[in-house]
């Protein structure tokens, strides 16, 4: 009798867990993470277009590289942010400053290991300085660097160095709330 009483809550837990897991998978877009990661080259004109184009939603850009330790360290936080805010219409793209020869090797390999599903680019320029100046003349080009633009294309937040997730989330909340109103 005692055994049968004890097994009821355990069975309930198992049933609830089995229901919860597929729900989480649906939210987490598991299907997309199984696709091979494609990293697209982005040149100066395309970068300019990305930043300045008219858009309906805020845009978050993270500049990174596989050789940059703090970039790799912050990536799990960025993947979580993408997962949490993409359903709320945040556009989030990453731009790698790795060598163009890494576009099909170490860059997608790292993104795959992080289960990153945001659109991924690699800066394809012979001289990075105009691109750095285009994004922010005061940015010295050190990585990682994260920039948030509102739906009008205005830069509303930037952070050079490893992101502080709570701070970044608070800034995203501000621009998303304005769009949602």
């Amino acid at each position: 009798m005692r055994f049968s009483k004890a097994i009821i809550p355990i069975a309930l837990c198992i049933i609830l867990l089995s229901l919860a897991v597929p729900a989480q998978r649906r939210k987490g877009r598991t299907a997309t993470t199984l696709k091979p990661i494609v990293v697209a080259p982005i040149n100066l004109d395309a970068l300019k277009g990305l930043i300045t184009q008219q858009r309906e939603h805020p845009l978050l850009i993270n500049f990174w590289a596989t050789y940059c330790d703090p970039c790799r360290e912050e990536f799990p936080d960025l993947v979580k942010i993408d997962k949490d805010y993409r359903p709320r219409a945040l556009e989030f793209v990453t731009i790698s400053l790795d060598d163009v020869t890494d576009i099909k090797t170490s860059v997608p390999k790292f993104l795959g290991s992080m289960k990153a599903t945001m659109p991924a680019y690699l800066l394809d320029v012979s001289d990075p300085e105009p691109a750095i100046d285009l994004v922010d003349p005061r940015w010295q080009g050190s990585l990682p660097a994260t920039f948030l633009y509102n739906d009008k294309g205005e830069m509303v937040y930037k952070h050079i160095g490893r992101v502080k997730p709570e701070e970044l989330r608070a800034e995203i909340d501000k621009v998303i709330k304005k769009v949602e109103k």
Partner: protein
Amino acid sequence: MKTRNLSILLALLFVVAGVVFAASARAEGEIPAPPAIGATIGDFTLPDVDNKEQSLKSLAGKNGTVLLFISVQCPVSNAYNERMEKLAQDFKAKGINVIGINSNVAEDAAAAKAHAAEHKLTFTILKDAGNKIADKLGATVTPEAYFIDASNKLVYHGRIDNARNAAEVQSQELRNAMDAVVAGKAVEKTEAKAFGCSIKRA
């Protein structure tokens, strides 16, 4: 008594956590700004990779000195090994000395020495433990160059050239600055943004 000991232990943990947090916060971008072009760079001393103290004054060339922040592990810095050595060789006879500085906390003098031997870097490499000089000069990445003229004035700061890939080099800002000083001319482009791996600070 046990409670008191526990309180002391907890207090110590808070202190240690505070120090760790301060160190990590320090590493996240609160790096001093680099000196302005034209500023005088004061003398300093650092040990070389053989642990022999060297001063900037003793290593300076008669026409100037290039300080190159370099790394053992950074692939961008390593892509420049041959170019850095070539600059050092080309300008030695012209009175400009190249000095490497390794400020990465994870790379000790022995690693820097082995790396120099492996990549045939013949210029002096200093070990900047505690990133004292990286802070003094506001250096953030490797490779990053500071060119000081004969009167210790900063005349160029930034990248070596425009491309990590040697085959794509179109503008050689550091070499141009060194050529200008040797020719007794003013440096045309005094700054160009350096790109590479972040210097891992203590």
